[in-house]
């Protein structure tokens, strides 16, 4: 109710503050309604992290190991790259934090777990489709999938 805050900054002041907050909320709504394709293309590290999380909830070290194994050692994420990417993915709403608990295989300190959101799953699917289309195009041009003469 605008009138209730009239005493502090005046009605006009509150009105302006309200409009600026409303603009911010509109930006958030626009971001929330963005289609998965708007997030593409994903950097390889980000795609690998989302791919690793498609298996379920994982902590940082498990993501790192999963990425290294899946990429056959071609993508190696350091702590800075991994947590930098996770921070961006959390902010974009593609990943969410799970419970903090000790990893059963390591049995030491409590670790933060991460999991895909519905949006994150849609985005990783869209990126996989995009990459698949590119591979099919390369195959049609016989750049891959044919034995060298």
């Amino acid at each position: 109710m605008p009138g209730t805050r009239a005493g502090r900054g005046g009605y006009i002041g509150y009105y302006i503050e309200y409009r600026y907050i409303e603009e911010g909320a509109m930006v958030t709504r626009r971001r929330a309604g963005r289609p998965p394709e708007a997030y593409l293309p994903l950097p390889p590290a980000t795609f690998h992290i989302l791919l690793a999380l498609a298996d379920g909830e994982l902590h940082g070290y498990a993501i790192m190991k999963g990425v290294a194994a899946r990429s056959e050692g071609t993508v190696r994420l350091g702590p800075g790259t991994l947590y930098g990417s996770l921070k961006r993915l959390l902010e974009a709403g593609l990943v969410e934090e799970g419970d903090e608990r000790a990893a059963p295989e390591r049995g030491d300190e409590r670790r933060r777990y991460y999991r895909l959101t519905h949006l994150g799953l849609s985005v990783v699917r869209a990126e996989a489709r995009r990459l698949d289309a590119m591979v099919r195009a390369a195959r049609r041009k016989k750049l891959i999938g044919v034995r060298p003469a």
Partner: protein
Amino acid sequence: MSAERIYRLLLRAYPPDFRSEYGREMVLLFRDQCRESDVRTLGFWAAVIWDVACSAPALRAEAWHTRGRLSTRTMGVIMKLAAMLTVLVGVLGILNAGVEWGAGVTGTIGGMHALSLVLGVFASGLLLAAGVAVLRPTQQGRQAARLALIASLVLIVAARLLFPWMSIFSQLVGIGLPVALLIALYWPRKHSTPSWGSTP
């Protein structure tokens, strides 16, 4: 010095907010890496430093941009104050021109002087309208404010050229205020596009 202590020092390259949020997790992950690798090799430390060098500057830049976005509210408050000041200057400009016209009626007032006073009144009226328009932060309001400020600036400069009746203070306010407001209104606004930073 232990490997972990060196890594804690390297963590200082990251923004404080990021460090406080993920620093502990990063140290845990580094500890895991230390368990599975030989920390005495050059290759291990080259990979660690490469990771910090690749990720820390991008996160610093992002933190800087985020601070810029947060200052949007501060900018809103500054614009509100500037708009109120513009309304006040517009009202004072009209009153001043009226007083001067009144003084001129009793004495002699030249044609150029009279014309510059009329232009001054119009310029002040436009400043007043621009101030009111800025107080309505809609796209139409901003556009109306821009047009009013440009017109006011043209009229003030014309009045100043026709007859140098303005004091230095009035010239600074009459020209400086519309210019400052126009810069603020034409300043590019940030768009929210998905950014993945410079991750490999």
